[in-house]
């Protein structure tokens, strides 16, 4: 790996930290309704919404009521998104005269966007009108992220409560997360991207004659190039910031209209990690101890930075199968080199490697290079980052609440080692918390491994893999790792719109989202009722390098023990085969 690649990774993570720390403070104020400027503009709108919706902003919900509100609101969003896709031809703003989306694909897409997954079994530019993209998909991009933010706020309240048993109001958290956090951030990023070349219009298409006419596969002459355009910048902004990842175009952020320059690529890649990173610092502020936030952030970086380096190194090293053909893959001043299949010339393997690690560490799933064509190890690390449970940054809100489950487990394990009752932030961690945390950690893993095994046994499912051998197995494993952890990226060679894959990914996405979210709220409710005990000489501090190390070890141990055998069958075998030639 070149020195420039190390430098690029270092600058990237330094920039992320420099942006995330102040944003963390901003989010804490915004969710309390105290953000300056933004609050003054959108505050009146917020209060009007509460009045019309009959919401009491001072309501304190029990965890059951909070969870029920989340589930009903998400279910309603799912139905609306399904309806918009089915009614597409009858709705305005459909310049390409696109037909109704078939029912099965429409359900899959609705589940996918409501669960913050953005797994796509369709090609954006040829399936969905600008209206459905804006009023359907982009709206759920906001609301699914705001849902994660709200649940995190509820958990933080449970940890910080002084034995009241109350978690705040989901409606208020949802509204403030949307209006005061996600909307202003997206607006700023969208305008930046539009200025740098990302298209932004109300639909239509770019059309011009080809400089040199070509012929299609059947020999007919092609004289024109036609590229659909639409509200792309506004959608890309929230798909990056909301850890959604669903692209306007099928090629996602590899498409030059979604990500035209190295600078837009940097902005979009930072936006992938920005909100989940900032939430670490928001959390530190909420619980009144900044060191808690820094410890979690440091643990996340301690996992992500080495895996980013490993991914970039694998991609920059290139593909031995092509080296054998005499292709020049050496990086230098005149070419990025490395493994360029599925990558864009303006980006190259370093930018694509950083993005691949970021988009799978966060549960984003957007891509700026086709993951199916990554080298075996370049694909292994992103896959493992998803399998860890989307907790190394993870989704907006969901990443940190997932990581806090591991904090609870780490506190418990270390409590066993020193023989003390485990506690976190003064709250005793008891059997109920450990049971619920175990369920939430194991459910997605069970779906990944069980689903992969099932798909290998069902001939129609296994036949959907587009590549032969261990790489085909990787495509299947990647699909379940992605959907059951609400990431949404894919090894795109897998044909995912058949009945098996639609249904299997529906189940995986729903279990991965709500099988974690509901236990987290249950833990929050239980913790909120407990009295906080002042720290004593025997309390294990949950800040500092020692605890960060314990946390990292817990995450890696669970992730490695669960998934190493499966990974050995896919990417590891492919790597050995490729290098044995």
């Amino acid at each position, binding site marked *: 790996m070149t020195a420039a690649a190390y430098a*690029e990774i270092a600058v990237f993570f330094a920039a992320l930290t420099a942006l995330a720390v102040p944003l963390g403070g901003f989010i804490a104020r915004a969710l309390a309704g105290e953000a300056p400027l933004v609050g003054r503009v959108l505050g009146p709108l917020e209060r009007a919404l509460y009045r019309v*919706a*009959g919401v009491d902003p001072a309501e304190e919900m029990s965890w059951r009521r909070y969870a029920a509100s989340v589930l009903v*609101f998400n279910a309603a*969003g799912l139905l*609306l998104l399904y309806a918009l896709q089915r009614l597409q031809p009858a709705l305005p703003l459909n310049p390409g005269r696109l037909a109704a989306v078939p029912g099965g694909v429409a359900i899959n897409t609705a589940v996918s966007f409501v669960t913050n997954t953005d797994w796509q079994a369709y*090609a954006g*530019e040829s399936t969905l009108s600008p209206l459905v993209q*804006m009023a359907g998909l*982009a*709206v759920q991009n906001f609301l699914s992220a705001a849902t994660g933010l709200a649940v995190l706020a509820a958990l933080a309240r449970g940890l910080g409560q002084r034995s009241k048993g109350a978690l705040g109001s989901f409606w208020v958290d949802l509204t403030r997360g*949307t209006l005061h956090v996600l909307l202003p951030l*997206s*607006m700023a990023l969208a*305008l930046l991207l*539009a200025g740098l*070349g990302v298209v*932004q219009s*109300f639909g239509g*298409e*770019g059309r*011009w*004659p080809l*400089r*040199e006419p*070509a*012929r*299609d*596969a059947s020999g007919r002459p092609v004289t024109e190039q036609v*590229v*659909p*355009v639409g509200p792309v910048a506004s959608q890309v902004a929230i798909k990056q910031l909301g850890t959604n990842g669903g692209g306007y175009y*099928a*090629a996602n952020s590899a498409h030059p*209209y979604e990500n035209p320059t*190295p600078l837009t690529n940097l902005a979009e890649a930072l936006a992938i990690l920005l909100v989940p990173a900032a939430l670490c610092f928001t959390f530190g502020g909420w619980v009144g101890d900044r060191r808690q936030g820094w410890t979690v952030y440091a643990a996340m970086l301690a996992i992500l930075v080495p895996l980013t380096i490993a991914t970039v190194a694998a991609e920059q090293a290139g593909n031995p*199968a*092509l080296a054998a053909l*005499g*292709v*020049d893959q050496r990086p230098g*001043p*005149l*070419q*990025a080199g490395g*493994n*360029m*299949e599925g990558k*864009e*010339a*303006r980006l190259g393997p370093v*930018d694509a490697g950083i993005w691949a690690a970021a988009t799978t560490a966060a549960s984003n799933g957007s891509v700026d290079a*086709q993951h199916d*064509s990554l080298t075996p190890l370049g694909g292994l690390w992103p896959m493992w980052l998803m399998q860890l449970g989307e907790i190394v940054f993870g989704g907006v809100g969901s990443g940190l609440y997932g990581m806090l489950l591991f904090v609870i487990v780490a506190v418990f394990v270390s409590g066993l080692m020193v023989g003390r009752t485990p506690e976190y932030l003064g709250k005793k961690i008891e059997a109920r918390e450990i049971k619920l945390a175990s369920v939430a950690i194991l459910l997605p893993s069970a779906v990944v491994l069980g689903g992969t095994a099932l798909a290998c046994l069902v001939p129609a499912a296994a036949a959907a893999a*587009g*590549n*032969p*051998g261990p*790489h085909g197995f990787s495509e299947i494993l990647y699909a379940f790792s992605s959907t059951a952890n609400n990431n949404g990226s894919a*090894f795109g060679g897998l044909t995912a719109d058949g009945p098996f894959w639609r249904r299997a990914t529906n189940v995986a996405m729903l279990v991965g989202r709500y099988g974690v979210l509901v236990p987290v709220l249950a833990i929050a409710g239980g913790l909120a009722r407990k009295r906080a005990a002042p720290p004593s000489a025997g309390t294990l501090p949950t800040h500092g390098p020692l605890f960060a190390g314990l946390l990292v070890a817990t995450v890696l141990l669970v992730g490695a023990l669960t998934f190493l055998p499966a990974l050995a069958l896919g990417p590891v075998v492919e790597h050995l085969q490729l290098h044995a030639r």
Partner: protein
Amino acid sequence: MIRAVAVLLAAFTLLLGGVYPAVVTGIAQLVFPAQANGSVVSAGDRAAGSALVGQPFASTRYFWGRPSATTPVPFDGRASAGSNLGPSSPALAAAVRARIEVLRAADPGNDAPIPVDLVTASGSGLDPHLSPAAALYQVPRVARARGMPPERVRALVEAHVERPFLGLFGAPRVNVLALNLALDGLDR
């Protein structure tokens, strides 16, 4: 609860699905109309393409861009896609071998090693760029086909090289359409 769900969902759909993209579109169309509409470039008085979207070139007189995996035609703007071929795929090796043969046949005397981006399919199928190495590799063929001195073509490539942002982000690259339009400009 039903009232809260209905009102909030409707209001957010209107605000996030209507007002938000409308405001961004309005500002973008006003302040950066060229970028917002696809960075269209013109040759003479008519549109010749987009500075951001690659086009298929097959004649020996033009620089060829990245291989494109879109169907049914390469560089199909309605169907962005990569090949999705895995690194160990026999189909990938076969495709690369075929592309090498085409390049060698078009320029028999050129024994330079072939830059990787010239024989691998891009992620979008619409990649507008090549690495400078991949453009320089094609200089002898293009110069011969146009009857121009190779130094002149080489100088044109070098004038079109774009460098990484801050020297770190992105890759060194050449816009193929811009380069080919400039070539046609020299002819006149």
